[in-house]
């Protein structure tokens, strides 16, 4: 047994992690092996009052602040769920039909403009997340964010952390749009950041970023159903800007963001 293995076994002996037979074997060797005894002694010298010392850190944890931000997150999710549920109840049948129509329109759009869209990703997987965003966006109304206070820079930073991008209010600001919320979603294991804005005239505008290592792609604009969509990919991240705005306007917003991402 190497010295390292021997030390590991002795530590397990000290920590009471050996079974009865292993323990007996170590003890028997200790009675005759002076070197082993010296090693045991030295490992024991590495003991410290760990529990007591680390108590100090628990006392210093900013529990109140963490609790407040947890409560805020839960409340925001709850508001979001309620607001989504309300729009579902209000428009039950209509919504299902709308979703079908959007899917149908998207299908037509893909069929018609397929090469342009699909050329963005050789694996063909990039299309999926963009399509999901389009479908997801269809459920948003101005009321989705109506009563909510805008996300704090901290939320933005957290979303940014998951995407590996530093996000600040300045970096994501868009002219004439009110920034409302930032959240992180998950698309087949890839973090998908969603930044929500409200355009007073046309309603929600979404800026989404996915970290899924897709190849670089130049800016493309497109209409899908009632949405105008602009997308590009750079440095392993895909970007999409979507809203019920004229294509030209979405392109302007996207161009302004592309300069910053």
């Amino acid at each position, binding site marked *: 047994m190497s010295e390292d293995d021997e030390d*590991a076994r002795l530590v397990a002996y000290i920590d009471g992690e050996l079974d009865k037979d292993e323990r007996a074997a170590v003890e028997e060797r200790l009675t005759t092996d002076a070197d082993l005894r010296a090693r045991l002694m030295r490992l024991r010298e590495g003991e410290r009052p760990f529990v007591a010392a680390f108590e100090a850190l628990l006392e210093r944890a900013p529990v109140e602040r963490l609790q407040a931000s*947890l409560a805020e997150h839960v409340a925001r999710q709850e508001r979001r769920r309620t607001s989504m549920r309300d729009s579902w109840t209000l428009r039950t049948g209509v919504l299902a039909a709308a979703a079908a129509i959007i899917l149908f329109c998207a299908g037509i759009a893909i069929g018609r403009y397929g090469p342009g869209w699909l050329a963005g990703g050789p694996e063909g997987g990039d299309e999926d997340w963009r399509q999901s965003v389009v479908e997801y966006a269809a459920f948003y109304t101005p009321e989705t964010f109506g009563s909510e206070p805008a996300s704090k820079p901290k939320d933005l930073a957290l979303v940014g952390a998951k995407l590996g991008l530093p996000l600040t209010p300045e970096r994501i600001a868009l002219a004439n749009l009110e920034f409302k919320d930032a959240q992180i979603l998950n698309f087949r294991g890839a973090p998908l950041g969603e930044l929500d804005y409200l355009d007073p005239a046309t309603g929600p505008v979404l800026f989404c970023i996915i970290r899924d290592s897709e190849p670089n792609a130049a800016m493309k604009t497109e209409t899908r159903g009632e949405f105008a969509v602009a997308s590009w990919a750079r440095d392993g991240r895909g970007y999409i800007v979507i809203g019920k705005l004229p294509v030209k306007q979405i392109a302007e917003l996207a161009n302004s963001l592309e300069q910053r991402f």
Partner: protein
Amino acid sequence: MKAIARKEVSAGLAPNLARLWRYALVLSGARDVADDLVQATCVRALERAEQFQLGTQLDRWLFSILRSIWLNELRSRRVRMGGGFVDASEALVFDGSHEIETNIFAAQVLKEVGGLPEAQRETVLLVYVEGLSYREAAEVLSAPVGTVMSRLAAARLTLAKLRGTPEPKLERRQGEDGPKSITQGPKDE
């Protein structure tokens, strides 16, 4: 079952915040990163609440999530952004001479553990502070039990050295110069 798991996770987060933060601090060595790490852990735990296995210990599950966010997301970001690594031995000892005076032993232990490599630091925390068994720690660390053992052995040997315990195989030699003091000497102003 899923609803119960969700309930258990959302109810169980608040009582674990301080311990999660401590783990985050031991990993990251920086308090602001520890804050972010705990918040991200809570968000992720709520998102994945349905995956929590009822009847298992929630704190272990949360530790695993926290660790994976640290390794996969925040640590690499710190390195990419040029933040590099902070010396955890500094971050684990709090500023303000008050604490250090009143709790000099705790401060000393934190400083010593903070000086260990990240992998040893977190293993010491999980086993010796949090009281996880080797097997439980191995699960949180996604490592074999043997790795837990060798990290603890390495940590103990380093800590023993700080106490000035000589290598057991070396003859103890008398009459030589004592160890050079790094704290007593005159300071260059």
